[in-house]
């Protein structure tokens, strides 16, 4: 046995308990080890000595000592967490010191990460608020919207008598209510204002579970005709017109010349109808059509399912009710059914797909930022090779050094995350301020716990991903080499890693750029779509008429309207003006049932044909710029006294008179005026959407025009379309003046240009396109900066080599070509990878694109070329620097 081993073996044999302590002590954290061993060993020694004193140190007691020393194992285990605390705090302190030493680097990286993480947080808060967050009502999953399905319209309005039957006979809803939007002229408590209102049934607010902030909502029975006129107002109106005063309950407001008593104020958090200011019981609506089982007055229902009832069960229940109604009232209800759509689905619409796609896109941007940071850290870790090598030499393990690097990158990413969260908060508020209607449920987008948690997780992942590459490059044997070499190796492996990272960045940027490019092409295709009318210099607005228009005789009303129309046409700057009722392209829809004269009258409306109806004046064609194809349009002679005439569009003609001339044929509109003669055919206008595919999905395309003067008399308001010589405030001011001159109580509201309306109808597309463009631009910038950084760094590393090449006779352009070639190689790899990825991923955009395929080769090629050009530019500066290396300096240094 060797000399060194003897004492150890002796100890093992004679004092195994002490040896065991020494063995267990190996797992105790180094800092605490000394103390720990001393305590245990001294206790064991003490006991050993005591036992020896008492002459009891025999085999049994020795075993006892051994047993006691095993307790040290649990104690050592208990001390393990200390190890982490110490090391972690050390790492963090050291990391902060290192980052503070290079403030420029640190600030640049933190900013880059803040942008990336902040963009992700902002978009996630949108996804969270719109898609993930449940609606702000009690048990929101029970809330369903109710509609009547007709043969050609799946979610149509419910006639009021049908609704009453549904409410009485259903078995699956605990409560049901109905409502319809409207607008009122509000007087009292300030100057006259046009406000959005809603006719509701009495249980409307209790179905939703909304408690009033002040006062009460409607009591049951208050929606019956003849009940007292009461109203519930919004928090916004309460603040605006009543200064949020506490005594608003019991005060009255005048809506359309009728006085209502305010009984309640809604809380500010009620956002289902954000622009609606006043809610009035439906019984107050003086409309005889409410009793007509065939009249669809734009009423839609909302109901709360009973606990435990599924949507399918409710659907079956209402289907049964409708079947009974169809049997009892075949004229009105044959062929109609019930449709149930969850409230959340209705509110959120199609925006879900877009939001998720955008979240994916912004994830790419963050990934590129990560890769950039990774490259930067990688480059910087070269400069620290000596530091790491020395630390390794004095005992720091590979894992320890890796942990140090990861800690630094985590510090950077958490700082970036914190700043990013601030940016996200500020950014979403700014964006929503600019585009409040771009998203549904916009009021619920904000920073809540889930968004913060998401940001924390993203920050941690970012730190890990960014720090991974440099951390993995710590290799013990390389470190030893580096000390020998004096710390200046170029590190071929490091070079390769950087090259791969740059290629990945380029690939990601390419995918985003192609996505943005496709969206741009799609949007410009949409803009080029011919809507069937000429929108330039066209303005639409509404006029709320003086209340006695309603109570006047039809003749007096008509005369007054004619007067107003003439005045409007006479305004200087107005080229053509026309009243417009019924449907309006891209704005509102209205339809009529009809049958072709000469064919037998269908037994119920479900067997009649349907057409969009536009009630307009003779100047409408000029005002809208719609071409007249055949026959004639209306004239001033087409009024209530002349024979009934209509004009149809080309779609109507093709559908109902294919191959024949519709002029002279007649249609019956089911009113008491008999058959209408078709006197003209005009061009088809885009009614539903500028997106031809979306528009084409609507089955109702036939369009029919009625002369305004023939059909409209007593009306509370009119819509107006005006073509001006140029859009300017002067014309609208003159129009407003003229309208008030006609009657001081008239109110002009809702002024919009046709161009604006077209823009709004493309708003959803524009919004996502804008965002995608922004992300792609940022991605391109980041990727170019990344490429520039890497090439720059490589040039710096190889400066000596270039110097030597020059000394050996190389030309400037050879070195230039060399460097550019390097950059191009990385770019080429990235482009190849990116094209493959883009090919796979752009399919996800399919439903958002119009007029261009998701794999459009022209776009792909163009973007690839663009990327290569930008990459060349990014490499140019470092390449030039390489070409101007002074060979003498290099030789001297080497």
């Amino acid at each position: 046995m060797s000399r060194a081993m003897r004492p150890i073996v002796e100890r093992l044999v004679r004092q195994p308990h002490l040896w065991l302590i020494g063995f267990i002590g190996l797992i105790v954290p180094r800092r605490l080890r000394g103390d720990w061993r001393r305590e245990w060993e001294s206790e064991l020694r003490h006991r050993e000595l005591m036992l020896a004193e008492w002459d009891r140190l025999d085999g049994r007691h020795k075993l006892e000592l051994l047993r006691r020393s095993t307790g040290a194992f649990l104690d050592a285990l208990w001390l393990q967490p200390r190890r982490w605390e110490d090391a972690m705090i050390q790492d963090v302190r050291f990391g902060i010191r290192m980052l503070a030493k290079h403030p420029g680097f640190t600030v640049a990286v933190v900013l880059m990460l803040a942008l990336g993480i902040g963009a992700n947080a902002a978009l996630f808060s949108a996804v969270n608020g719109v898609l993930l967050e449940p609606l702000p009502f009690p048990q929101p999953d029970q809330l369903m919207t109710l509609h009547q399905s007709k043969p050609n319209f799946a979610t149509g309005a419910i006639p009021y008598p049908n609704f009453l039957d549904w409410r009485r006979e259903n078995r699956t809803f605990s409560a049901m209510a109905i409502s319809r939007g409207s607008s009122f002229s509000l007087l009292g408590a300030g100057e006259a204002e046009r406000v959005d209102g809603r006719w509701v049934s009495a249980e409307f607010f209790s179905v939703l579970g909304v408690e009033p902030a002040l006062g009460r909502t409607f009591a049951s029975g208050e929606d019956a005709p003849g009940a007292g006129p009461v109203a519930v107002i919004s928090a916004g109106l309460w603040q605006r017109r009543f200064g949020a005063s506490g005594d608003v309950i019991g005060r009255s407001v005048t809506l359309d010349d009728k006085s209502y008593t305010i009984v309640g104020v809604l809380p500010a958090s009620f956002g289902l109808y954000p622009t609606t200011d006043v809610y009035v019981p439906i019984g107050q609506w003086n409309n005889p059509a409410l009793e007509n089982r065939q009249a669809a007055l734009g009423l839609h229902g909302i109901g709360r399912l009973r606990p435990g009832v599924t949507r399918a069960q409710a659907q079956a229940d209402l289907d049964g009710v409708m079947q009974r109604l169809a049997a009892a009232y075949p004229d009105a209800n044959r062929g109609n059914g019930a449709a149930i759509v969850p409230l959340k689905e209705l509110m959120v619409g199609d925006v879900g797909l877009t939001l998720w796609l955008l979240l994916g896109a912004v994830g790419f941007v963050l990934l590129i930022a990560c890769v950039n940071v990774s490259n930067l850290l990688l480059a910087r870790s070269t400069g620290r090779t000596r530091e790491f090598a020395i630390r390794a030499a004095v005992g720091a393990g590979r894992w320890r050094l890796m942990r140090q690097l990861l800690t630094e990158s985590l510090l950077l990413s958490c700082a970036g995350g914190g700043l990013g969260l601030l940016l996200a908060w500020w950014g979403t508020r700014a964006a929503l301020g600019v585009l409040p209607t771009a998203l549904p449920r916009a009021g619920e987008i904000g920073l809540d716990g889930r968004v913060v948690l998401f940001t924390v997780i993203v920050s941690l992942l970012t730190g890990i991903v960014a720090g991974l590459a440099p951390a993995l490059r710590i290799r013990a044997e390389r470190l030893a080499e580096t000390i020998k070499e004096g710390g200046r190796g170029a590190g071929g492996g490091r070079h390769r890693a950087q090259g791969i990272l740059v290629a990945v960045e380029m690939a990601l940027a390419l995918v985003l750029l192609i996505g943005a490019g496709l969206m741009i092409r799609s949007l410009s295709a949409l803009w080029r779509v011919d809507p069937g009318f000429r929108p330039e210099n066209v303005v639409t607005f509404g006029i709320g008429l003086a209340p006695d228009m309603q109570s006047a005789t039809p003749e007096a009303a008509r005369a007054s309207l004619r007067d107003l129309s003439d005045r409007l046409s006479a305004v200087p700057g107005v080229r053509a003006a026309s009243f417009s009722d019924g449907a309006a392209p891209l704005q509102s829809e209205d339809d009529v049932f009809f049958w072709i004269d000469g064919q037998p009258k269908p037994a119920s409306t479900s067997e009649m044909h349907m057409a969009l109806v536009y009630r307009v004046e003779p100047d409408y064609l000029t005002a809208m710029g719609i071409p007249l194809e055949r026959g004639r349009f209306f004239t001033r002679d087409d009024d209530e006294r002349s024979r009934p005439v209509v004009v149809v569009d080309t779609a109507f003609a093709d559908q109902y008179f294919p191959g024949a001339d519709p002029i002279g044929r007649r249609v019956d509109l089911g009113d008491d005026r008999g058959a209408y003669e078709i006197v003209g055919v005009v061009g088809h206008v885009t009614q539903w959407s500028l997106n031809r595919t979306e528009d084409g999905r609507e089955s109702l395309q036939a369009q029919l025009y009625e002369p305004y003067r023939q059909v409209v008399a007593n009306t509370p308001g009119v819509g107006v379309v005006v073509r001006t010589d140029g859009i300017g405030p002067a014309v609208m001011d003159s129009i407003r003046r003229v309208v008030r001159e006609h009657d001081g109580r008239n109110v002009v509201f809702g002024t919009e240009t046709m161009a604006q309306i077209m823009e709004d109808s493309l708003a959803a597309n524009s919004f996502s396109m804008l965002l995608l463009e922004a992300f792609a631009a940022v991605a391109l910038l980041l990727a170019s900066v990344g490429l520039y950084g890497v090439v720059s760094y490589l040039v710096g590393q190889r400066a000596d080599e270039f110097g030597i090449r020059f000394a050996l006779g190389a030309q400037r352009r050879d070195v230039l070509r060399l460097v550019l070639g390097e950059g191009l190689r990385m770019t080429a790899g990235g482009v190849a990878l990116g094209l493959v990825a883009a090919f796979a991923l752009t399919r996800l955009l399919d439903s958002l694109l119009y007029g261009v395929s998701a794999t459009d080769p022209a776009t792909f090629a163009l973007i690839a070329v663009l990327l290569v050009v930008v990459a060349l530019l990014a490499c140019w500066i470092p390449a030039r620097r390489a070409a101007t290396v002074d060979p003498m300096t290099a030789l001297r240094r080497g």
Partner: protein
Amino acid sequence: MGKGYLSFSAAAVLQAVANGYLYGFDIIDATGLPGGTVYPALRRLEEAGYLVSRWEKHTIAREAARPIRKYYEMTRAGEDALGEAVKRYRMLERTEPKGERAPKPNEA
């Protein structure tokens, strides 16, 4: 372990120290708890501020020709905590203080 709530074994250890058993192994004997319980309890109690630990004076140990031992003393806070624990764990009252209190080993 947060301030205020002592587990039974921690309370037992604290009581043992109060009864005059100041060294780790003595506490093990007095409480009957194993070393793997007593020592972690001692450390937790020290972290919570109920005990302080000290090494005994070199001179004492040198005379006995053995390494110096670490001993534990109760703090004011520890006394309060023990008072609370005793109310909760009735069995603690039945422990016996160590014979006549051994003279406190002077600080190392």
